[in-house]
């Protein structure tokens, strides 16, 4: 089992003829993801990596029965592309595009809700269910099938930690990069709920960072609702207030959103927080050993 993507995922790529879209279509396809089509207005009839291109998501869905979409279009057009997928009945949209204006995301949120569309991102590396489906730009070689769920606000830090997990023989059910923007789709709690209900996931690793109060709320949720162990790491302990650390969402504003507050909240909820990524496998081992007693 897994969450969100698996062998039944039928993926279309919006922006398939662009540089990034084309490149990652090749990598996802090579991994075994079932890519059924691509969208690029004006290019219907062409193929990319042997995959048929359509003028619209609607056409692609009609012809292929796609249920998931990944978006590589430039930031200025990303919100439109997300809505196009939603209106065409796509159930899960993964937006890789970086630099999408916050107002655009706020404007489309109620429509996604009304259509029942799940969104991951924008500004995210996507997700992977090892051995089944890669919907994103994550480097496939570091992942391994297993039973740890993984959620992260960051990209390369995800690779760093997943690599450590894999080296320590902790394979993964599904790894999700939720992205670093202040207003994004599925967040920690939405995904923890899914991991809690996934019979194959035995524990979750969660990578947070400074900014906002999602980690604090998540800690509360874990305390009240999670039976499976969670281990965390928070990036940005040395970040100065008022400076945006690369991600639009990673900023300490007016003293709130600091790493200290987030770590304290997790500790109160019984979630161990690693001092450095290398400590995560050890904390996970301890938590799981505790369960068996």
């Amino acid at each position: 089992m897994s969450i969100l993507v698996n062998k039944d995922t039928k993926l279309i790529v919006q922006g398939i003829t662009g540089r990034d879209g084309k490149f990652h279509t090749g990598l996802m396809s090579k991994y075994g993801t079932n890519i059924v089509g691509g969208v690029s207005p004006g290019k219907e009839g062409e193929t990319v990596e042997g995959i048929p291109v359509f003028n619209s998501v609607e056409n692609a869905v009609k012809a292929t029965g796609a249920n998931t979409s990944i978006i590589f279009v430039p930031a200025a057009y990303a919100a439109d592309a997300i809505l196009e997928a939603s209106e065409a009945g796509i159930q899960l949209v993964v937006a890789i595009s970086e630099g999408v204006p916050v107002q655009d995301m706020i404007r489309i949120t109620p429509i996604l809700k009304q259509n029942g569309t799940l969104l991951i991102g924008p500004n995210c590396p996507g997700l992977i269910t090892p051995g089944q489906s890669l919907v994103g730009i994550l480097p496939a070689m570091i992942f391994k099938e297993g039973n740890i769920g993984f959620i992260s606000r960051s990209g390369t830090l995800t690779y760093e930690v997943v690599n450590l997990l894999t080296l320590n023989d902790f394979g993964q059910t599904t790894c999700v990069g939720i992205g670093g923007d202040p207003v994004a789709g599925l967040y920690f709690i939405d995904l923890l709920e899914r991991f809690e209900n996934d019979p194959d996931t035995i524990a979750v690793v969660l990578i947070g960072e400074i900014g906002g109060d999602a980690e604090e709320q998540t800690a509360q949720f874990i305390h009240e609702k999670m039976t499976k162990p969670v281990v965390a790491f928070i990036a940005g302990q040395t970040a100065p207030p008022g400076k945006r650390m690369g991600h639009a969402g990673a900023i300490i504003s007016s003293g709130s959103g600091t790493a200290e507050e987030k770590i304290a909240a997790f500790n109160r909820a019984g979630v161990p927080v690693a001092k450095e990524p290398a400590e995560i496998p050890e904390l996970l081992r301890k938590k799981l050993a505790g369960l068996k007693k």
Partner: protein
Amino acid sequence: MKIHEYQARQIFRNYGIPVPDGILCYTVREVENAARELNCMTVVKAQVLTGGRGKSGGVKLARNVEEAVTAGKQILGMDIKGFTVEKVLVTKAADIEKEFYVGFTNDRNTKSVTLMASAEGGVEIEEVAKTNPEKIIKYPINPLTGLLDFQARNIAMQLFGNISHAQKAAAILTKLYKLYIETDATLAEINPLILTTDNEVLAIDGKMTFDDNALYRQPKILAMREPDAEELQEIAANEKGLSYIKLDGNIGCMVNGAGLAMATMDMIKLYGGSPANFLDIGGSSNPQKVIDAMNILLGDKNVKAVMINIFGGITRCDDVAKGLIKALEVLMTEIPIVVRLSGTNAAEGLALLKETGLPTVSSMSEAAQKAIELSKHK
């Protein structure tokens, strides 16, 4: 992106929000002329891109021209939290009956623009939020309808308790929401919004920040940018596809990805060192980026050692290695460099670096410890 109070007031004016008359001054002479022209009690206010101006003595009331001149002399050139005051705003002083707070911001939790309002105006709203959270009204706005007239009226009524005052305040709220949306703001606040002794409602102080991701479609806002030296450095780095923030430490870091870059800074701190910067070279593997990044790092005189931490995904480690070799040929530095390459094409990258004799390590913990050790030599 931040703007000054005088610029926020200009935007407010353009949208019809009442603000007292004011004149921007760069010299004491200009302050004198402004006070004479306004010909009333004035307030002289430092224009710097930081909060806490009042507490630092950067806002002073002047009863006459002489007092305005004295205030101008004191404030112009003073230092507020590391910012030198280069200009002041001289405004008409208002007779305040009561002060309020109103503001709009993006709320991550409700994924909406949220109106915040409080009858506790004039003080820092973050303080009120911490000590008396019940005194702040938070109202998420449906993006499909915007702030509706009746909603604005009801919230204003909760603050003012008098329908005629509330109607004036509601008109201001509606305008503030409109300008918030139309300028892609991330914060638009009036603090204080005041009720005057003659029953007018006025915006006395304004603060606005904007979404950097939306500046491409906000040319008028972008034209208001007044970056300081540090921000100029950050903007220059951005134009090269790098994300750079200068810090106070002595270990320069070059990392791919914002999260990993933050974690790298944390590692350096954890092992007893101090990072000189945040630097994310982003996702592509263009060797030129590595050269540009090395230029920035070595341009910081505080840097005593450099830690390069790359986890290759889309970024290919051999490309980073090539860029680094080129950079070192051009830059010829004595500063010690530690390199950690992992992930895509790491073996190829490490093989290339072998010839340079740069120390390479396999984990980021090791890299941080090695960089700290090297920074202490000499």
